[in-house]
Each structure stands twice: as C-alpha cells, then as structure tokens.
C-alpha cells in the first residue's frame, strides 16, 4: 500500500473505533471529498467493519443479563415514582448465570423453538379470568402466586386474576410443565382435561391432556403430587419424583408407573436422548418436538436402532446423523421429509 495512504487508513479505522476527535473527523471528511477513490476505500472499510461489529456485538451481549439490568431500573423508577434520567442506568460488573430461585422446586428454564406466539386475553366474569394460550411456540406464564408454567404449542391455561384465600385453582388443557410455588395454606389444584384433578403443594411436574380417549398423563419431576378423578376424590394416586400416572376415561383403573421416557421434557429442553431407540420412535419425537413432517418410506426401517444424544440441535442436524449412521436416504420436498432405505446397516 502506498506509504502516504497509511495515514488515512489509520484515520478511517480510528473513526470507526470512535477514537477520532473533531479535528481528525474534519480532516477525514476533507480527504473523502478529494476523490471518489478515497470515498470508495472508506465505504469498503465500512462494510467490513459492520460485519465484524455485528459479530462482536452479538457475542458480547447477554440478553438475560441485560433484562435483569432493565428490571432493576424500572423497579427503582416505580419505587421512587419519579422518572430517573435514562442515562443513569447502572451496570453490574458481576454476572449471575443462574436464574434466581423463588420456588421450592427448581428447574432450569430453556425455551426451545423459535418465535413463540402468545395470546393472553381476559373475558368478563364475576372474577376476572385470564387465559394463556401458546400458539406457534412454547410460551411461559407467571401466575399471581409466583408459580411458573411453560406451555407447549396448542395448550392453554385459565386462571383467575387473584386466587382465593382457600385454594389456587387453574384449568389446563394440552401439554405443559408447571413449577408451583410453595404456599402450605393455599393448595394448588389443576383441572386437567374434563375430569382429572391434580393437587399440588409445591413441586414441578409435567402434564399432558393431549392424547385421544380423554386421557391425562402426569409425570412428576420434583416434590409431591396427588392425582385423582374429579368425581372420585377419595381415590387419590400419590406420585413420587420420577413416577408417572395415566388416567383414562376408558379404564376404571389408574395406571401408575415409573417414568422411563427420558425425552418427556424434550419439547421444553431441546434435549433428545436415544439409546437403542427404534427409528420410528425417533421420527415420532422429531415430528413432535420440531413440528416437522417426517415419514418413513419403508416401514421396516422403523425398527432400526439409534443411539445418540442431541442438545439444542436443529431438525436437519438430527436427520443428517440418522442418514449417516443408518445409511439411509433423505429426500425433501415442499413440506415433507422422507426417509428411505433397504436395511439398517449394522
């Protein structure tokens, strides 16, 4: 590069770094007006700079930390009930990576899919009821008592604006994960589906009303739960962590078992674990968690076994591994993905 021009190269970079003073900026401006080549150099550098800057800005920022700073600011403003000057926002040097725990039960919250659609609407009743509906992705809700719920798409939760003194009652339909805060004098009840009640003292657990046959499935993660049919409150099934119960209208008995499905939280955590799992089960889970439409061309290949763990991978990444491991072929069209093959390549 022409030795004379290193001066202006340096100046350009200084300007982009925010290190140039007024005088240097005026100088740079004059030089840019001298010739179109100078301007072109400036613009080229600007483009490279922008690409780099986006990368560094995105890497450096932790939106969760920033949210905490924001919350602190508005809390302060509300407490004072004066509007603080916007540029007095303070930044903490320390970074807390763990979420503040407010419940007796603890669960890390990871949102899985892309943009979540949330509909929250109120309708008039004697006490206002609020309904939370998840549409295109998981959505999270915070209840008046501090309990937290994550809903899978297509699920809904209705709860009162203010819980009564005696009990906290909500209505739920679909698939969700609950973290109920501990209030020993105010038991928490969930009406799941048409006829099932879940009684909670303070725990975290998974509920699914989605299957056919008016069936409700509950899996307990931490704490303690009692599950029963609404019209048979004396026949309670108590769950311990890791246990699962299925109540179905078609069968008078209640099925309690130890939960063996390691992927029951996959819709929320983005983590899939397969150990000698048949491909048809993998595909079923893939379609459920990623909302894809993957089908098997030959039903026999559904019996091929896969062992793999995926954490926050894309559907394509998972399919690619399947393709490679089992020597199968994947074809994609408009909306469907087809897997085909002649054997399991063991």
């Amino acid at each position, binding site marked *: 590069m022409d030795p004379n021009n290193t001066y202006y190269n340096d100046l350009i970079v200084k300007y982009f770094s925010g290190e140039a003073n007024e005088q240097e900026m*005026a100088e740079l*401006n004059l030089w840019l007006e001298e010739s179109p080549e100078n301007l072109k150099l400036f613009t080229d550098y*600007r483009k490279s*700079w922008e*690409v780099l800057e986006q990368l*560094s800005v995105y890497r*450096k920022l932790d939106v969760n930390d920033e*949210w905490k700073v924001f919350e602190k600011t508005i809390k302060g403003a509300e407490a004072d009930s004066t509007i603080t000057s916007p540029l007095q*926002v303070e930044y903490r040097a320390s970074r807390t990576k763990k979420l503040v725990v407010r419940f007796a039960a603890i669960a890390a919250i990871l949102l899985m899919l892309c943009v979540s659609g949330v509909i929250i609407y109120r309708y008039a009743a004697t006490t206002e009821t609020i309904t939370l509906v998840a549409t295109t992705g998981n959505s999270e809700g*915070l209840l008046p008592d501090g309990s937290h719920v994550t809903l899978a798409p297509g699920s809904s939760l209705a709860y009162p604006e203010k819980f009564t003194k005696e009990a906290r009652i909500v209505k739920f339909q679909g698939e969700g994960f609950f973290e109920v805060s501990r209030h020993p004098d105010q038991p928490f009840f969930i009406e799941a589906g048409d006829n099932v009640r879940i009684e909670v003292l303070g725990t975290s657990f998974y509920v699914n009303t989605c299957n056919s046959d008016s069936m409700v499935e509950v899996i307990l993660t931490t704490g303690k739960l009692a599950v029963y049919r609404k019209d048979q409150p004396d026949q309670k099934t108590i769950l311990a962590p890791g246990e699962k119960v299925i109540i179905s209208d078609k069968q008078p008995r209640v099925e309690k078992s130890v939960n063996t499905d390691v992927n029951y939280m996959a819709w929320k955590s983005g983590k899939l674990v397969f150990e000698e799992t048949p491909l048809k089960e993998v595909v079923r889970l893939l379609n459920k968690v990623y909302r894809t439409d993957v089908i098997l061309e030959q039903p026999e290949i559904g019996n091929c076994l896969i062992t793999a763990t995926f954490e926050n991978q894309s559907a394509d990444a998972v399919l690619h591994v399947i393709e490679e491991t089992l020597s199968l072929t994947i074809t994609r069209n408009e909306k469907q993905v087809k897997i085909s093959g002649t054997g399991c390549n063991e």
Partner: protein
Amino acid sequence: MEEQPLQQILDRTVFETLFKEHFKELVFFAQRYVKDFDTSREVVQSAFVTLWEKRETLDPTRNVKAYLASVIHNRCLNHLRDHKKFNANLLSLEGLSGSIAQTSDDLIAKETELIIQQAIDELPEKCREIFLLNRFEYMKYQEIADHLGISVKTVETQMSKALQHMRVRLADIIGILALMAMWNAN
C-alpha cells in the same frame, strides 16, 4: 415474590419477550452511530425504559421496533453532539443522519462467522491481539496501549493493518451479502 398488579405481570411477560428479541439488533444499530459499546447499551436500555413507561399510552399495534429505533436514533445523535463527536457529513456518508436509518438485517450466518474467524486467525499475533482487544473486548486505544506497554500510535497502525486484511478476506462475503439483500428486497 412481592405483590404486583396482575396487569403489570402480564405486560412484563410480553415485554420481556420483546426485549430479548430486539435487544441485540438495536445495540448493533446504536453502535453504528456512537461507535462505543457501553454507550450503545445504555442508549438501548434507556429506550426500552421509555417504552415501558409509555406502554399504556402507545398504540398497541404500533411497530415497536420502529419506535425504539427512532428513540435510539435521536438519543445517539444527541450523544454525539454532547461529546463533540458529531460530524454531519461523515454520518451522512454512513447513511445515518437525516431521517432514521433502518435497522440492518442479520449479516452473520454460521458460515460467514467461520470465515471471519479464519480471517482473524490469519492476522499476525500482536496485530490479532490488539484487534481482538478493541473489537471484541471493547477496550479503547489508550487502554490497549497501557495494557500491552506499547504506544497508541502502534495500536493505530496495527488496527489499520488488521482492517486492511479483513477487508480483503471479507470482500467475497460482502458481495454475497449485498446480493442476498437485493433478493430479499424483491
């Protein structure tokens, strides 16, 4: 958890989603003006505070991002004037003065990130170190000079060399990105 009016809790849940969705893009947007990371963050934080305070009076169907961008645009220009870093011509050459600049589309895909990383790795050691300290740790030239025991002039020269290298290596990506921007616009 303290007692809070439920309306506030609901608003906050939705607000939090908005905040986390737009924050990074808006900081990148502010950074183009003020060229200082901490200032960009502050300005964006304050814009969100303003939005929060006005949330009940604003039209709910209004484009939130556009509103925030306009607040940020104005505050950035004010900041530059207050700190004597305002040069109307240069800003206009960067497409930033006058009417509100657009927020950019995502420039970085996984593939381009790899290329950028490679290009950075190709820099000579001292040059790379200085470049990373300024561009990724956001240290000022003087701070870098003090930290490494070199002169500010050396920092300036090395930064310049680094950007020259990046310009050459990123030329391909930038061409493709420009094409993609055109396709998306059509």
